[in-house]
Structure formats: C-alpha cells, structure tokens
C-alpha cells in the first residue's frame, strides 16, 4: 500500500515536472499533435519508409 502510494508520488512528480512541460513544448513548437489529426490537404496517409530504414538491423533492440 505504502509502496504503491510512494510509486504514485514519484511517477506523479516525474509526470508533472518532465512529461507535461516537455510534452507541451513539443505540442506548441513542433506541432507534434498534427499526426493525430486529419490532413485534408494530403493525398495519402501512407508514410514511406526512409531509405535508411529499408533494411532492418535485427541485432538492435530499437
């Protein structure tokens, strides 16, 4: 119980002081929300694979 509460507190601090400010900056300056929205001007919603990602390196976790 106390651990769960403590974890909530730590994650809450992390969320409020890191995720929220970073997120809001991202949303305002880099328009990061655009990809969640419709784009009437676009011909297609397909995202082409950039040439460097056409071969997938299986030795990496990312």
């Amino acid at each position: 119980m106390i651990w769960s509460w403590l974890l909530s507190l730590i994650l809450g601090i992390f969320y409020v002081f890191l995720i929220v400010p970073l997120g809001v900056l991202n949303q305002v300056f880099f328009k990061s929300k655009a990809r969640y929205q419709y784009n009437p001007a676009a011909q297609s919603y397909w995202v082409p694979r950039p040439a460097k990602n056409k071969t997938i390196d299986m030795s990496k976790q990312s």
Partner: protein
Amino acid sequence: MTYILGISAFYHDSAACLLKDGEIIAAAQEERFTRKKHDSGFPSHAIRYCLDEANVKMEDIAYVCFYDKPLLKFKRLIQTYLDFAPDGFRSFRKAIPLWVREKLFQKQNVIRALKEIGGQGPVPEILFSEHHLSHAASAFYPSPFEEAVVLTLDGVGEWATTSVMLGKGSKLTPEKDIHFPHSLGLLYSAFTYYLGFKVNSGEYKVMGLAPYGRPQYKDLILDHLVDVKEDGSFRMDMSYFGYCTGLKMTNAKFDELFGAPARKSETQITQREMDIAASLQAALEEILLKMTKNLYQTYKIPNLCLAGGVALNCVANGKILKESGFKDIWIQPAAGDAGGALGAAQAGYHLHLGHPRTVHTSDSMKGAYLGPVFSDEQIIERLKAQGAVFEAMSQSEMLDQTAKALADEKVIGWFNGRMEFGPRALGGRSIIGDARSSKMQSMLNLKIKYRESFRPFAPSVLREDMPDWFDLDHDSPYMLLVEQVSAAHKKPMSEEESGRFGIDKLNVARSDIPAVTHVDYSARIQSVHKNTNPLYHALISRFKELTGCPVIINTSFNIRGEPIVCTPEDAFRCFMGTQMDMLVLGNVILYKEKQDRNLVQDYRADFDLD
C-alpha cells in the same frame, strides 16, 4: 545445420517456433501447454516442446529471434504521453512501471528465461525483428509465391499498425506504413469493446454477429471516425477514442455519436448491436478493398500475402480475393501475434543471415500441423491413467466407426496427428459433426461449447468437391476465406422466414448443410487436402461414401474460454465435461455411455468467459 528459434511474448498469444535450415520443424502457442487462454508470458513450455520435437538442446540453437523491438515500443509509449500531456496520468501511472520492467529489461529477461530452459550451456545470440516485419515474414516466406506484395494489419506493433512490404525471392523490403494511433485493428477492437465483448479475443464474435445486421451506421463510421484517402490509407478521429491515454477504448463522444453507452458484457444482444457490427464490417471491407485495389495498381505484382490480426477477418479476405485485382492471395494461418514467432525466425534466417529461400508449390506451413503429436501407445498409456474405457483398433475400423457415428448425428471429439499452430482447429484437435443436421448448430453451441448461439460453425470440405458445394475454387486450408454456399445447395427462404430478425433467422434451414450456413448463406470454409492431412481427408471421404456429402462441421476442441486441447488428457477432460458422444484419438475410440460417470467433471468455471 542452422537451428533458429523464434519467440513472440509479453503482449498476447505467446508462441515459439523452430526452424532447421529454414524449414519449419515445430511451432506452438504457450496457451496450449499452460491452459491459460492467450497466455502472454514467456513461452517456456512451447520452447521446450520445439527443442524436444527436433531433439536438440539450447546450445544447438544458432540464434533466438524475438518478434519485436522492445525499446522502440517503449519510445512510442513515452512519445504518446508527451503528445497528450497533460492528459493521461492515470494510464501513465498504470503502464509505466510495467513497461519499464518488461520493455527496458526485455533482453535480460529473455536471457534469464532461456538460461532456465537451457541449463548451464551458453545462451544463443538474440536478434530482434520488427513487429510488422515479423508479421510480413510469416506471410511471405512460407507462401507459395516467388514474388508478392505483403500487407500486414493489426492493432499496433512498435509504431506501425499497417505495413506494405515487397517480397521477392529471399528479400523482403519495407515500403510504407500507417502509424499508431491510426489502426484498423484498434478500430475493430474499439467496437468490440463498445459491443460488450472482450478486446483481443471477442473480435471474431463481432464478425460473426455482422451478417444478422444491416449496415446502417456505415456512413456514420466513415464520416466521423475514419478519414479514408483514395489509395485506401486512413486516419482516425482520435477525439472519439480513449486508447491513447485513457484506460478505455472509446469515450463519451463515441457514445454520443451512437446514441448510447457501451453494451454491458453478457447482456442481451439486440438488433442494434447486430447493425453496428454489420456497419463496422462493411466499413472495414470498404477500406481494405480500396487499399488492396490500389496496391495492385501501384505494384502490378499478381500475388498478395496477408498477416496481422486483421487478416483473421475471413469475410474481408474473401472479398479481397474476389475483388482486389490480385490473382492470388495467401494468408498466414497464425496471422495474430503468435505467428510473429514464426516470422521473426524466418526474418532471422533469410534477412539477417542471408540464406536463400525454397518456394514450395503449395506452401511451407505443412498444413499448420506443427505442434505435439501422440502415438497410439502414448495415447493408450495416458488414457489408462485417466481411467478411461476405450477400444484400440485398425485405422480402417476407426474410420468406419467414426464416419458412421457422424452420419448418426453424433458429436465427436477428433484428436489426430500434430496440433495446429494458430487460432483455428483444422482437423488435428477438432470437434466434428454432421453438417446436414438441422439441430447440430444449436446443440453444439449450447451443450458442448457453452457459448452464444449466434455464432456459426465452419465446414471442412474435401478440396476436390469444394466447387460443387461453395462458390469458391481456391485452396482455403486454414479456414481464412468466407464464401457463399453454392446455389445448387441453397434453400430459398419463405417470405416469413426471410422477414425474421436476428437469431430466429439462424433456425431456418437455409441449405443442404444448415449447420455451417450462416444467415447470409456464407460459410467459413476449410478445404481438406489429401497431402497435408490424409487421415482427416480419408474420414470425410468415408462420410461422403455413406451420405453423399463431402462436408462436415469442424469446430475447435475446447469449451468456451478454454485453449484448444493439446494432450490426450485435455481431450478426455473436455469429452467428459461436455455432452460429446464419442472421442477418437489416433486409432483409439471412446464412447460416452461406456465411461465411468464418476469421471464426469464440470470444469467450465476453470476458465474466464472469452
């Protein structure tokens, strides 16, 4: 000799697959061993089985291929919280501790689990495929095509929810994707949730419900929820959905659009739910047809391979085969994430190690019979230990007795050969019955499967007789294509009958094989081939000799919520726990009336409803 072990785990439907020089030796889902439906834990049992099947040890394995990239998934999660901040703390609080444990330390977790299996020996090098590369590899490499367009659609992998890759020889090249949160799999799951079924397992119920409804909400879906471009690519209006940051799939705005909150599970299903299911199915088909038609026109390659959970939508698959322009399609039978284990291993072998590929004229899945097998001796020994009363006999005698019982409308548990890989029972672990019987559908549903009576059963038909009974002349060994019963075997409905609504309509005999004919005259067809399952083929042939009908009912050998049976013990328990009349394991037959009544156990409560 190169052995490669593929693993999919930690999401849903964990599985393992073993390749020997590129050939699929064994594959199985963890749930079959642990008896926990859609078990997502590390597939230790499935791995042990694969090693045993090939008679090898962990140290003989050259590479272990994991089916996705955990760190990329973790990045997507964080990015999504950033994009939705300050919303989403409740989901963040719940998800992050789990994801930190699972994704950030996944490699270490996998190594530890492999060590537990392998003992003191060294752990093989671990490779990480990409989620949709695994799906695509599982669809292309075992396919009978030298060259194909590969389309994979599911809920979500790392970022991709929809991918197009081009396969040629042993090469598989990613072309383009649609990214999270825009996802046909998640759209379908959102409606599954809204209609009161379980996400990640109830989707096929929505598909089964659709033929009862009228697609009157289709425009509502296409006007408000999804924006579809001319080429079939799409985005969803996320203001209606809760899955990015909330803990629910749909939200209040969604409820408002459809005029009511989500249906509570296990409550009465009304015409409204049927209409919504029909509308969703129609919208999905329209999007998929637009997409596949455009892919055919863009790449001008005659073959299409499909995988990912959405490829289990066999109604849509039937339409793609007929209308997309592609001359031929092949669908991975384990299209969901279990099949990712197989794809990851194939990607490791052909893409990472660069080995060439042999294309087989049918396919390389061995009929999907890739799981454990039991000899008659093993079956007899295990049945004795259970206290079963049985009779061992010659194969010919077994076939005669079984075919005769089928014709007498008996319900039979059929346990033969290797267990299937993927969600469908294909005549290895099946419950079978007479498709001509008008009472079979409701009897099977209520007395054996203990599930809703609206769901239709699927037919197994001899491949050579298929065109006479269905409007389909294309191999469908994995029950992944839906087509109409042929006109010669349809029975017209009277005006009163066709005016009936919903489930009342199901009780009208609409064809010579009513037990497998859905209300719209469609059937989810399994073609049975002599070369991949000779015994099952022989059984249906005997049944045909007796009755003139080459079609039987085939449903999975389990009760509601239970994984398909794996061992003779599982089969015996299911046989005793239901009103099945007869059980056939190898050449051993058990009749219900001869069994000790004290061995009957109602084990329905052991499983959560699906």
